[in-house]
């Protein structure tokens, strides 16, 4: 009998297979370091607009040699973190408020205050916007946009469902009653998208109650447990009565085309105001922008910049990098080429330059920001180190409640426990 299966051979092949598997797990990386590195995150519209900007810059600065790298938001941060750890971060990078403190507190970003008023002109930006990336007296980024939370409303769908129209006088209570009514009577629609997992809208809710989400030093949570309990109870009740879709529907939300409002499952969604431009193409009916519901008193909203151009502290071309940043936010042609793909432009001059038609989604977004800018309370300081960890946990815990994997009380306890570890 000859089967060729000897012990030695099997052992050898098995080990070789394992070694091959471990080798296959290795990737490769590395990048050149000749010109000026520029990186950003975003979707295709952002990539296209940014490439155009780079071309424009190259026309005006023939000696500049810009290397770009870009990816979707989620993938961007792995690469940036690794590059930063290897001290090879791009000279100019798009930075999000979610990560600003993580990077700035750990010395990865250059202080730009020395350039402001000189290389970088922030004269056109509103103070709240221009200061958005300041931490402990240093400025770690230049705002790309003025951003505020908003409600997106599909009025035609509301009319089709036979529900009364909504306006900005809505309170959280009246909104819930209205949403549950609409969902309950229509049978195939839900009143609103589930926002129980939105840490940002929750921030507005907390601010209405008179406190900020985080303490001034960013080392802890400033709101009461009861506020979070109310919030999650509120949305749990909404899901139970068709005011919001069940958790399994919301768990499918990823890109804009999967938003329940895009699929025509609900007439109300929430997001950052410029998102209307990405959302509208998926909705056949026109969307309107309203301020989100309030508790009845003052609004908890604020207008500030949540995305920045930052410069790496390890950059050896900081002066050139600052010039590029100034171009990105102030150059007339750059402003026109960008439009609102990075959000509503951060200055009144840029807005006037764009001269958008107020009936377009972009125009509506710009109008909304201009309209609420004067009336909303002062913006909170930059989000603290550990923000991103809490942001994803917040969504996950709301999901746990929705799938009945956790009670509201347990979820609140888990969030406060995690905050203790994440914030410092």
């Amino acid at each position, binding site marked *: 009998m*000859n089967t060729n299966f000897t012990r030695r051979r099997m052992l050898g092949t098995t080990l070789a297979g*394992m070694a091959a598997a471990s080798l296959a797990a290795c990737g490769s990386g590395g990048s050149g370091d000749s010109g000026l590195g520029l990186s950003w995150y975003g979707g295709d519209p952002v990539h296209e607009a940014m490439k155009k900007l780079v071309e424009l810059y190259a026309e005006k600065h023939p000696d500049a040699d810009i290397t770009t790298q870009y990816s979707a938001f989620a993938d961007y941060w*792995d690469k940036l973190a690794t590059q930063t750890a290897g001290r090879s971060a791009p000279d100019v990078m798009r930075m999000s408020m979610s990560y600003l403190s993580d990077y700035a507190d750990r010395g990865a970003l250059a202080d730009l205050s020395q350039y402001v008023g000189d290389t970088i002109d922030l004269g056109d930006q509103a103070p709240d916007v221009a200061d958005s990336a300041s931490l402990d007296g240093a400025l770690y980024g230049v705002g790309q946009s003025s951003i505020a939370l908003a409600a997106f409303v599909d009025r035609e769908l509301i009319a089709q469902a036979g529900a009364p129209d909504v306006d900005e006088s809505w309170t959280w209570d009246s909104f819930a009653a209205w949403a549950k009514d609409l969902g309950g009577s229509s049978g195939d629609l839900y009143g609103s998208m589930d926002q129980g997992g939105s840490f940002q809208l929750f921030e507005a809710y907390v601010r209405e109650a008179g406190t900020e989400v985080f303490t001034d030093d960013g080392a802890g949570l400033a709101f009461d447990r009861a506020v979070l309990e109310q919030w999650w109870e509120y949305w749990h009740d909404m899901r139970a009565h068709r005011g919001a879709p069940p958790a399994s529907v919301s768990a499918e939300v990823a890109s804009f085309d999967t938003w329940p409002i895009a699929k025509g499952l609900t007439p109300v969604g929430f997001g950052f105001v410029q998102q209307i431009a990405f959302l509208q193409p998926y909705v056949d009916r026109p969307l309107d922008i309203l301020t989100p519901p309030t508790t009845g008193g003052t609004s908890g909203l604020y207008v500030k910049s949540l995305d920045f151009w930052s410069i790496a502290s390890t950059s050896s071309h900081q002066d050139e990098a600052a010039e590029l940043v100034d171009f990105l936010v102030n150059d007339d042609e750059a402003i026109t080429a960008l439009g609102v793909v990075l959000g509503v432009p951060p200055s009144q001059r840029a807005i006037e330059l764009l001269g958008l038609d107020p009936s377009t989604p972009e125009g509506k977004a710009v109008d909304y920001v201009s309209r609420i800018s004067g009336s909303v309370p002062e913006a909170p300081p930059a989000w603290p180190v550990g923000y991103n960890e809490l942001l994803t946990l917040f969504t996950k815990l709301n999901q746990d409640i929705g799938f009945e994997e956790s009670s509201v009380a347990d979820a609140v306890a888990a969030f406060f426990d995690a905050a203790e570890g994440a914030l410092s």
Partner: protein
Amino acid sequence: MSALGELRRLRSAKGGTTVASKAAKQEERAAYLFLLPWLAGLVLITAGPMAISFYISLTDYNLLQAPEFVGLQNYLDMLGDDRLQNSLRVTFVYVFVSVPIQLAAALAIAVLLNRGMKGLAFYRSVYYLPSLLGGSVAIAVLWRTLFGSDGIVNRGLAVLGVENAPSWVADPSTALGTLIILNVWTFGAPMVIFLAGLRQVPASLYEAASVDGAGRWRQFTRITLPVITPIIFFNVVLQIIHAFQAFTQAFIVSGGSGGPSDSTMFFTLYLYQTGFGNFQMGYASAMAWVLLIIIAAFTAINFWASRFWVFYDD
């Protein structure tokens, strides 16, 4: 690792002979020279990073600042980390459900294909294809769509009269199941290995068995299975290791979140989130070492247990 054995043999050969020691020395030098690329690879790509990773696992390291030594704190922290323990549970369910089903499917198809049918090469390729594609991002994206609320699976169910079926990837009770199906579907690699093994089973054994009146099933259980136990063993070891390391599928199907509600949060995915999402590289490195120990332990158990069921022809 077999190269290390060669090296050792070369060394002992040197000690044994004194006559042609100069030639032996030259030969040894040549051997080291030829081994150099492999050794460089071992040191730079495998051993070096592993040593660094072990050091980092003993530190608090946020990627952006210098690591700070904390001893075994990261390992101790894991004991109280509920999400980590959940991720272990998810990973174990995935490994111990998907690997047996996958191997059973692979063996069954291999046996069918081994009957000397026409167009074997074609069928072999067709069944192997998923193995090439299964780990890819594109398939994971496709999977998300297939099992979504208005995916093909639910449209099929609607035809059968089941209306408004849930989204399989968005429900914590079924999401992991879709990933298990995806892994089972990639049975091609073990199948090809089984097929090669089946062809090595001597026909004379079957002839003798039919003369003795053994039926198909009896032949399979009494001849085929025992003879190919080394092949089964090989596949079990490799597929278990492979399944423990699964990442891409869960990452894409859950949109990177391991959701819904951590139901597809593989250990590897949690490790990734901890390291790159939360900047806790020390903790993530410690997790990687725990995964290595788990995989090593299961491999050792497999090798130990193989003494009782694997039949070698030597």
